[in-house]
C-alpha cells in the first residue's frame, strides 16, 4: 500500500490547545517540586533513586505524550520512540551485569 494515499492532509491535523498544555505544564512543575522535596529525605539509596527515576519517567512520558504529540502518532513513530529506549536499557543492563559478575574469586 502506498503511503502517498495514506498520509492525511493538513486539515485533519490534531491539536492540543493551550489549556491542556498549561495543565500539563502545571503537572510537570508539581512533579519537579515533588522530586526535589523527596530527595531531601533519605529513604535509602535504592528507594531514592527509584523514586527519582519513576518521577522523571512520568515527566518524560508526559512531555512526549502531550508536548511532542506522541498521542496522535502512528505505530511506526511509537516503535521508533520506544526501541531506542529498549536498546539503552539493554546497554545499561548488560554492562552492569558484566561488570558486577566479574571474577569474584580474585577480589
Amino acid at each position, binding site marked *: 500500500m502506498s503511503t502517498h494515499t495514506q498520509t492525511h492532509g493538513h486539515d485533519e491535523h490534531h491539536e492540543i490547545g493551550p489549556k491542556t498544555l498549561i495543565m500539563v505544564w502545571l503537572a510537570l512543575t508539581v512533579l519537579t517540586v515533588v522530586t526535589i522535596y523527596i530527595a531531601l529525605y533519605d529513604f535509602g539509596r535504592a528507594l531514592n533513586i527509584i523514586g527519582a527515576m519513576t518521577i522523571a519517567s512520568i515527566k518524560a512520558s508526559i512531555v512526549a505524550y502531550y508536548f511532542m504529540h506522541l498521542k496522535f502518532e502512528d505505530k511506526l513513530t511509537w516503535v521508533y520512540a520506544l526501541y531506542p529506549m529498549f536498546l539503552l536499557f539493554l546497554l545499561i543492563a548488560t554492562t552492569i551485569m558484566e561488570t558486577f559478575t566479574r*571474577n569474584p*574469586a*580474585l*577480589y
Partner: protein
Amino acid sequence: MLSWLPENASNLASGVDNVLLFVTVLSVFFFLLISAFLIGFAIKYRRKTEHDETPYITGNELIEVIWTVIPSVLLIFIFAWGYIEYREMRTPPDNAVEVNVVARQWLWQFDYYNGKKTINELYVQQGRPVRMVMRSEDVLHSFFVPDFRVKQDILPGNYTQLWFTPTKAGTFELFCAEYCGTSHSQMLAKVHVLGPEAYAIWEKGIGIDEGTSVASTLPPAEQGAELYTNRGCNACHSIDGTALIGPTFKGLFGITEKMTNGKTITVDENYLRESILQPQALIVEGYQPVMPAFEGILSDEEVTALIEYIKTLK
C-alpha cells in the same frame, strides 16, 4: 596426526581440540554441501539460449523449516560444548601452585611462592597444576601459550587468572596476545616445563636460573647475546643503531652521554652495571625513566655477560 594443531601440552588442550575438530568437521561438511550445490547447479543449469524457460519456484516451507532447524540445533550444541570446556578452563583446582605474573611494556616478570623471580622465563612442573595470578603495570597485555590452549588478558588495576597443568616436559612459547604498543611483538617469553627432579633442583636452587644451566658454558659475550633476547632487552634496545624506547646498544660502550640531571658520563663497565641494575639512578637525556630494574633478577654473572656483549657491538 593433526599436524595443523599446535602441540598438545596441557590438560586443557584436548578439550579445546575436540570442540575445534567438531566445528571443523561440521564446517567442512556444510561448506562442501553448499559448494557441491553451487557448482553442480552452475554446470547443470548453465544458460543455453537466451530464451531458456525456467520454472516459477518461490519457496517451499518444509525445506525452509528443515534448514532452519538443523543448523539451530547444531549451533546450540556447539555453544553448549564450548561452554562446558570453557568452564573447565576457568575453574582452577585448589591444589594449584600459584605464580604471580606482572606484565609490563614489554616484558614478563614471574614471582614464585619461594621468593624466586624470573624475567621472560616461566618455570613450571610437569603434571602439577599451576595458577597464574596476573596484573599489569601499564596497559592491557594477554598471556597466551598456544601449546597449552590458554589465553587471558591482563589488566592494570585488576587481577585476572588462568590455570593449566602442563603435561609435557620441554620449552614452550609464550606470547603477549593483546596489543600493547610499539614492542608488542617482542613481548615474548619461554615456558620451561621441568620433570619432577629438574623442578626440585630449580626450586631449591639459590641462583636465579640454576637448574636450567642454559647458557653458562658459553663465552660471556655469546651468553650476553642470548640474554639480550631472552631477558627482553631487545624490546627497547636495538643493536643496529636505531633508537627505540631506549638508546641503541650499538657503539654504546665508551661514548660520552648527557644525563637528565645535567651530568655528563662516559659509558664504562660500572655505568653499564648500574644502568642495568638500577636504571632510575641516571636517566639518559631524551628518554623516559621506564626501564625496569633488574636488581635481584639478573645474576652478577649475567650482568657481566651482557656488558661483554654490549662491548662487542661496535
